[in-house]
């Protein structure tokens, strides 16, 4: 049995429309989030002895110099784009468990003034073994390839556009009560159905926001967290995993038939439920990475909240709503609150389990957080209070 780790502090900058965080630099945003997280945990910057990042482009040396962190004994970074977001908790928990660090700060941030995540396919030259997609006209981002999966899910299971609409409408209703959320105006089915198609069957509203922001989380041992000011949020399980049949996902588009219409999360789900000794029925609130609406439905199936192929009717039943079968993204998610590559989902899980969430799920004890369906490593964590 590993030494359990806990999240003892959370810090976040405000969330900004893409580019509006300037003239602050990305590092300035990170610094503000780290200082806020350390203060929230009742610690000082000198206590920090581990740094974990998601995703690319963060330099531990620069952060140490900038903030005056005296010495670290552990630093690591999860690879990828969306997929590994929840894995920062996995790395931190392992560093705590092995004694490599006592106070790990996990950092995730994005500033999209130059580099737009949603146009990721045209942000780099295609490699020789992935040029066919580009030549086929898939020159934008993963929204276009998730449209391919959404279309196939509709074909196989009869999933309706109303299901995608419900994912977006539920997120918007949740965001409407949350200060700092970017899209707060409630959305009707008519609004959804009249939105422009970006990649048929997905509309502009099925695509997440493009925002800037930074978040940081202080992870320490559960034992130490008990003596700190905040109610500890325990990392009951954490995983980064994936199967070959999922592979590079929307970069190769040669997943197995079953995986093609999934979020690639089944191996993560299996590991998480095994570690935590629970099943999907024990989860009180799910923070599912929603870069697009359709993969929320895929993940509900991957994580066992409904049977394969039944995700559409499941969400249309109101399952994601307050009091529904599994409340999803009560902060409004990437679709309505803000997009900071999965970090906002971890923050919401912590707030739910502290009992301080804006849209508090009553008696929430156990939360699931997932990384985004994208190339391996897929990731997830189960948190409990």
């Amino acid at each position, binding site marked *: 049995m590993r030494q359990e780790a806990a999240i003892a502090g959370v810090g976040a900058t405000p969330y900004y429309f893409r580019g509006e965080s300037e003239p602050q630099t990305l590092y300035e945003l990170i610094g503000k989030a780290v200082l806020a997280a350390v203060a929230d945990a009742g610690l000082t910057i000198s206590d920090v002895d581990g740094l974990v990042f998601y995703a690319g482009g963060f330099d531990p040396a620069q952060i140490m110099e900038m903030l005056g962190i005296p010495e670290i004994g552990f630093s690591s970074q999860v690879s990828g784009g969306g997929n590994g977001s929840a894995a920062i908790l996995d790395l931190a928990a392992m560093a705590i468990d092995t004694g490599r660090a006592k106070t790990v700060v996990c950092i995730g941030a994005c500033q999209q003034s130059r580099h737009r995540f949603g146009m990721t396919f045209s942000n780099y030259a295609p490699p020789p073994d992935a040029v066919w997609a580009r030549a*086929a*006209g898939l020159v934008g981002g993963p929204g276009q390839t998730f449209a391919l999966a959404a279309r196939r899910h509709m074909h196989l299971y009869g999933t309706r556009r109303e299901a995608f609409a419900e994912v977006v409408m539920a997120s918007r209703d949740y965001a409407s009560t949350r200060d700092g959320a970017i899209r707060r105006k409630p959305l009707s089915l008519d609004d959804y159905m009249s939105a422009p198609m970006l990649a048929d069957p997905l509309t502009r509203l099925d695509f997440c926001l493009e925002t800037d922001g930074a978040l940081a989380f202080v992870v320490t041992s559960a034992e130490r967290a008990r003596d700190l000011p905040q109610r500890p949020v325990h990392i009951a399980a954490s995983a980064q995993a994936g199967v070959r049949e999922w592979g590079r996902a929307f970069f190769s588009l040669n997943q197995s038939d079953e995986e093609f219409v999934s979020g690639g999360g089944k191996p993560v789900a299996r590991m998480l439920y095994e570690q935590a000794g629970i099943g999907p029925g024990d989860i009180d609130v799910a923070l599912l990475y929603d870069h697009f609406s359709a993969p929320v439905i895929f993940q509900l199936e991957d994580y066992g909240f409904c049977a394969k192929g039944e995700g559409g009717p499941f969400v249309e039943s109101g399952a994601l709503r307050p009091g529904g079968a599994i409340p999803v993204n009560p902060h409004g998610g990437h679709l309505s609150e803000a997009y900071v590559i999965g970090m906002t989902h971890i923050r919401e899980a912590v707030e739910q389990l502290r009992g301080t969430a804006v849209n508090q799920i009553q008696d929430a004890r156990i939360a699931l957080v997932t990384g985004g369906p994208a190339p391996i490593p897929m990731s997830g964590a189960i948190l409990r209070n």
Partner: protein
Amino acid sequence: MTETSIAPNISGMDIPMDAWTQPFWDAAAVGRLLVPRCADCGCFRWPPGPFCPDCQSQRTDWVPAGPASLYTYTILRGREEGAAPVVPGLAEFPEAGGIRIPAAIVDTPLSALRIGAALNLGWSQAANAQVPVFKISD
């Protein structure tokens, strides 16, 4: 009247190639669609690469892909009002182990787009290569 899909404009696009994709493009230049099959275990693979993921052999045969059907597709529209749609799709090759090659579905009425539809092979000219495209008859 239904709209008809057009080919994405790739006339200025340079197709990057390496030793493991070159045979595909060499065959494409003469109008043949060949795909890699492991010379040891007979498994097809896509995309082309240095190893058979099923037996790790590097010995590769390039063989005809066979007939294609439409696995899935999306419809993209240009920013300009009235711009004709581009339809990226996945061509599935049942006789080649079910591999899928991303390709544009061109000159096809949108009303004819149907998962499972038989695809007819055509070619579109990039700067340095012929790229496969597919068409569905209404």
